[in-house]
């Protein structure tokens, strides 16, 4: 197991380098941060030259990348548009997005898996059909529609929640945004669980479990769910990264100052250190989440553990 983890960690290095290099090139090379700094008036050529030298922009891209990575490894992510270090923004943004992600994940697990198991065991019944239609609707309707609708009714009309989340982003304020953020994944988790449960109910080993005279409950929990949830848990693990990075829309709607919000600001103001810095950290989170998924897979399925 230890060797496996080590091997996976080493495999992450080229992926990390490749992904960050692509982002670096796209953000720095396609666009001129110096002229962006001066806006419509155009910079004084001497000042522009000095700035380019200061930020290594006169060097070839690969060299710039290496210098940037060197800075990052020493904890220097550069300066954001408001003059703060990017790391200060990260300190504030990541915990908020993390709380939002956890809230969404809890909804996916509680509601998604429950609905999936129930519908999977009752294929073709009216409950199953209605849940299927509902998940389809949720997948089809964009998040910003659901989000603004929820905000309008729950926040403005009924006044049950604050329409905008405070800068602290306390956990109780994140319940509704978390639910909105989770909805699409929740629908997928429901469908995935349903399919997996439905497939496994017909498996030979379930028939064996019944033939052993086990109570129905034990057959379902110990034999059916244990097998059916393997793909679902894998999906949830991979979703951690997506939820962290993909919350831009939800964070905008509810004015949550998390990762999505900061990324949006960075893009809007063409502040390359913010954009690249945040994305680099997100790449890392993705990679670690995927490693976690693979390890969980090995724990859940002995056929993989010993293969």
């Amino acid at each position: 197991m230890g060797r496996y983890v080590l091997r996976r960690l080493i495999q992450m290095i080229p992926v990390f380098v490749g992904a960050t290099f692509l982002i670096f090139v796209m953000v720095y090379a396609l666009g001129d941060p110096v002229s962006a700094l001066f806006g419509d008036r155009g910079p004084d050529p001497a000042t522009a030259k000095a700035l380019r030298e200061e930020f290594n922009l006169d060097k070839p891209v690969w060299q710039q990348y290496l210098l940037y990575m060197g800075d990052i490894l020493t904890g220097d992510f550069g300066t954001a548009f408001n003059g703060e270090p990017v790391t200060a923004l990260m300190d504030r943004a990541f915990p908020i997005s993390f709380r939002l992600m956890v809230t969404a994940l809890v909804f996916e697990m509680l509601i998604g898996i429950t609905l999936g198991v129930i519908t999977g065991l009752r294929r073709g019944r009216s409950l199953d059909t209605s849940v299927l239609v509902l998940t389809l609707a949720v997948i089809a309707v964009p998040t910003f529609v659901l989000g603004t609708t929820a905000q309008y009714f729950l926040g403005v009309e009924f006044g049950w929640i604050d329409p905008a989340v405070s800068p602290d982003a306390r956990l109780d304020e994140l319940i509704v945004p978390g639910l909105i953020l989770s909805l699409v994944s929740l629908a997928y988790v429901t469908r995935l669980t349903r399919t997996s449960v439905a497939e496994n109910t017909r498996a030979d080993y379930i028939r064996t479990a019944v033939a052993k005279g086990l109570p129905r409950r034990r057959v379902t929990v110990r034999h059916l769910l244990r097998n059916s949830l393997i793909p679902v848990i894998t999906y949830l693990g991979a979703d951690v990264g997506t939820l962290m990075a993909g919350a831009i829309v939800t964070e905008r709607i509810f004015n949550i100052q998390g990762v999505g919000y900061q990324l949006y600001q960075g893009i809007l103001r063409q502040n390359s250190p913010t954009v690249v810095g945040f994305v680099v950290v997100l790449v890392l989170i993705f990679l670690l989440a995927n490693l976690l998924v693979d390890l969980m897979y090995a724990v859940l399925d002995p056929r993989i553990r010993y293969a």
Partner: protein
Amino acid sequence: MPIDMDKTDVTEADTPGVPLLEVRDLHVEFRTREGAAKAVNGVSYTVDAGETLAVLGESGSGKSVTAQTIMGILDTPPGRITGGEILFRGEDMLTMSEERRRTIRGDKIAMIFQDALSALNPVLSVGYQLGEMFRVHRGMSRKDAKAKAVELMDRVRIPAAKERVNDFPHQFSGGMRQRIMIAMALALEPDVIIADEPTTALDVTVQAQVMDLLAELQRDFTMGLILITHDLGVVADVADKIAVMYAGRIVESAPVEELYKRPAHPYTKGLLDSIPRLDHKGKELYAIKGLPPSLMAIPGGCAFNPRCARARDICRTEVPPLADVTEPDGTPIGGRSSACHFWKETIHG
């Protein structure tokens, strides 16, 4: 839900005259979009303690469906039991409560499946799966159940049982996996074991070992064994009596030597003739012409008539009853019956 530890309420002493397990006029069909597929059409058989009944037939003959109905693991829907009784010690299992039936399953009647790799749960250790029998039916602790599991694995001669009890099914060879399957069925020393093609998925060399083990254990525990197979070779060694099935009906039943010596149904005769024989080396293999009928459209009269060389008009119009077979002079032959209008010609010449 409390676990019923007092097992004596299910097992009553053998009542003379009441078979251990009796299937009586069982009818099962499968509802499909195209109509009803009649998988089992009036099957009756009995098995007693210490007796081995072989149920022989091609795929689709209804032999497995009958077994699944006995076990209560038939998929309903699409399956539907449309008639008959399954009597365990005289009590109809089809009408008893689901909870009572569950306590019989695994404890009094156990089943061995064909493909142990898919029939064992891939994510649970074999020790857990074996121990589960004792924990659920006997209320044993996890630890005691594991000790029992090791004991069982020893009993079916799995080497290094103690070390292997925590291994998973995929870590065993096919033959060893089937031994675990047998151990699981045997765990609570049931009265009846149903083995559905227990050796079909195994290498020929392993087949004999597994079959011998099963026969030995059956003798030691004086269980009733229902052996479902299409392999005539397997049957000859271990079975006491044979029921041959075709298109959901029993077409012939007989003690094993009798059936091999002089079959009383053209289908049985065809099956026996199609066994490859050394002294026929170089000659073409015999095969019954045609294919088994679709269960959606079983031929009228005798279901076998389109493939039968002896078929006459009556075979196409009248379903032959399963009649007692006698010697030419009318003296009955014990336990023999045939569902052929012309069994006399078939058996006597």
